[in-house]
């Protein structure tokens, strides 16, 4: 599905308190929904401390689903191998619970790891090597308030609001949210 045409404004701030005060008026003015305004930082802040975003991210489903896949795959691999290609060792049963259990445990965890990574990539939309709105000052501690708006007029308005609210640098873009 093609992305909807949009405009972006990235305002760089120096202080947490300043950007915290800037967020709400901008959200109200442009009726911004969750996800269309973001705070770009080089370190995690407590969730919803500055920009509230209530979109869910149920990574746990990925962990569970992939974990279950690993569980059954291991049973097929470890148990099935013994069953189909039986090595008769001292009359022991072809399907042995203990070894199958061990392999199953390891595979379940391996696939859970994979599920976690898949979930992370799915919800963050990574990898994305396109030229998205960003400024390298962010990795040196600047706080980037990124806004997605529908038209140029709103973009100009938002840039003005950010500037007035204390942003020391404004970067405007198109279709690069």
């Amino acid at each position: 599905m093609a992305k909807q045409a949009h405009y972006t404004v990235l305002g760089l701030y120096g202080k947490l308190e300043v950007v915290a005060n800037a967020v709400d008026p901008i959200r109200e003015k442009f009726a911004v929904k969750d996800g269309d305004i973001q705070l770009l930082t080089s370190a995690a802040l407590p969730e919803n401390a500055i920009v509230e975003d209530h979109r869910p991210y149920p990574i746990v489903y990925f962990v569970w689903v992939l974990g279950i896949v690993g569980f059954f795959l291991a049973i097929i691999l470890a148990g099935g191998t013994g069953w189909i290609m039986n090595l008769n060792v001292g009359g022991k049963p072809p399907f042995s619970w203990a070894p199958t259990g061990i392999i199953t445990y390891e595979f379940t965890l391996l696939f859970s790891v994979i599920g976690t990574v898949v979930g992370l990539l799915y919800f963050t939309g990574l990898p994305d090597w396109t030229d998205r709105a960003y400024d390298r000052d962010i990795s040196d501690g600047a706080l980037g308030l990124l806004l997605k708006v529908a038209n140029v007029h709103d973009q100009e308005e938002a840039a003005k609001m950010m500037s007035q609210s204390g942003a020391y640098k404004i970067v405007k873009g198109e279709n690069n949210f």
Partner: protein
Amino acid sequence: MSSETATGHETHSHTHGGGHHHSPEELKSLTELEGLRDSARNKAKADYGDANIYLSEKDFNDDSLRPMFETKPGYFLFVIALASVMAVGVAAFVRQMVVGMGVTGLHQPVFWGAYIATFVFWVGLSHSGTIVSSILRLTMANWRRPILRGAEAMTAFSLMVAGLFPMIHVGRQWRVYYMFPLPNQRELWPNFKSPLMWDMMAISIYLTGSLTFLYIGLLPDIATARDRAISNGNWRAGYLRLLALGWRGGNYDWAVYNKASLFLAVIILCIAPSVHTIVSWDFAMTMTPGWHTTIFGPYFVVGAINSGVAGVILLMIIIRSIFKLQHIIRDLHIDCLGQLQLVIALIWLYFYFCEFNVTWYSHKPEEMAVWDWQWERFPLQLIAMVGGTALAVGLLGFKKIRRNMKAMVAITILINIGMYCERYLIVVPVLSHRDNPYKWTDYWASPTELSIILMSFCFFALLYAVFIKVFPIITMADVKEGVVISGDVRLGKHAVRVQVKE
């Protein structure tokens, strides 16, 4: 994208950081620390709190990325020296492949020797990295922050080194693919009922999980390094851009990332102990006296963490002194690791005592024969094994010792020498003294084995040295997070560091 206005970067670098880094003047008004400001600042630099909130984020990035971006001639000499020693080991391995396993000291009935002891040692060393990292993440121990990367990298690299040894040990390496679940010309799949097969699966999975854990932890820091490399026109920009996956640190991204990191920490915490338990079952699942014991699983795991924590401490001290990072990996962090080492060492001694006491008190002849053989033939190794850890327990109780880097280096090396001896004593005396007395024999590692073992240590050091040059060795995002949520408040006559926790 067009840039409209831009204020001077100088101003920005002093004020950015969202109030993360308070200048002394700001602190004064912010927390009413007048009169206590200077003492608080000095104390924070010395031994107080986790994060140094007086270091600006740009300065912190500069310092943390310096090991990566600045290379002195000594580094190349070091790498060449490592590679030269490794070349000897590679030559010894090639000779072993061409001539056969006869060039080793292995012979009837000692078919597991120094290779297997070294394998167990490296697997053990790998344990502490991710276990410590996971536990400290989950318990939100703030002193964990700068050391996580070094610990996680140690896990990944020691596992890579460990994985070589079963392949070196088995001989006829060209048939090693028999271990993989691939149909082969005999139309047989691996025998999953063999503990060796469990071992192979567990270590492969642990390595995969550890590398994933390391990479996910690296992601925000790779993005920081990417930005720095692009700004400086550094050659690293290409691969860093690729590996950063386009990370830009949005608030939603951070929320997802933290949740994923939490899941990974829990999962890795489940994998790690299982791996060394399974390694212990290589021994314990046999009916051999000295090996067939129920305590082996947890005993191996605790031994692994004992040597692993010592390994982390040693590496951290080396890194901070070579790259002058004493203000980031501070005495406080080594102190805390020393306290952790003390606890683990005590637990290991307890386990060893349990194993020894049960065997000695029951006095089963076949078990006692192994003990007697150990005392008779390997007294120095036994003394090193118990003495190294016992000495650590005696000394690590003192704060002065834990903050004395030379002492800590000596203690951690002693612990690891002891733990290597432990692995040797588990493998060799048992086999050289098993079954009928006419088979009893001595085993000495041959020059070929010693060369390959030495190669493994150089290989580990080389992997680590290369890693430091291609990725940030300090867990930057984690440290910054600690700074964001830190501040000083006044408590009576003192300034106290507090951190916000959700």
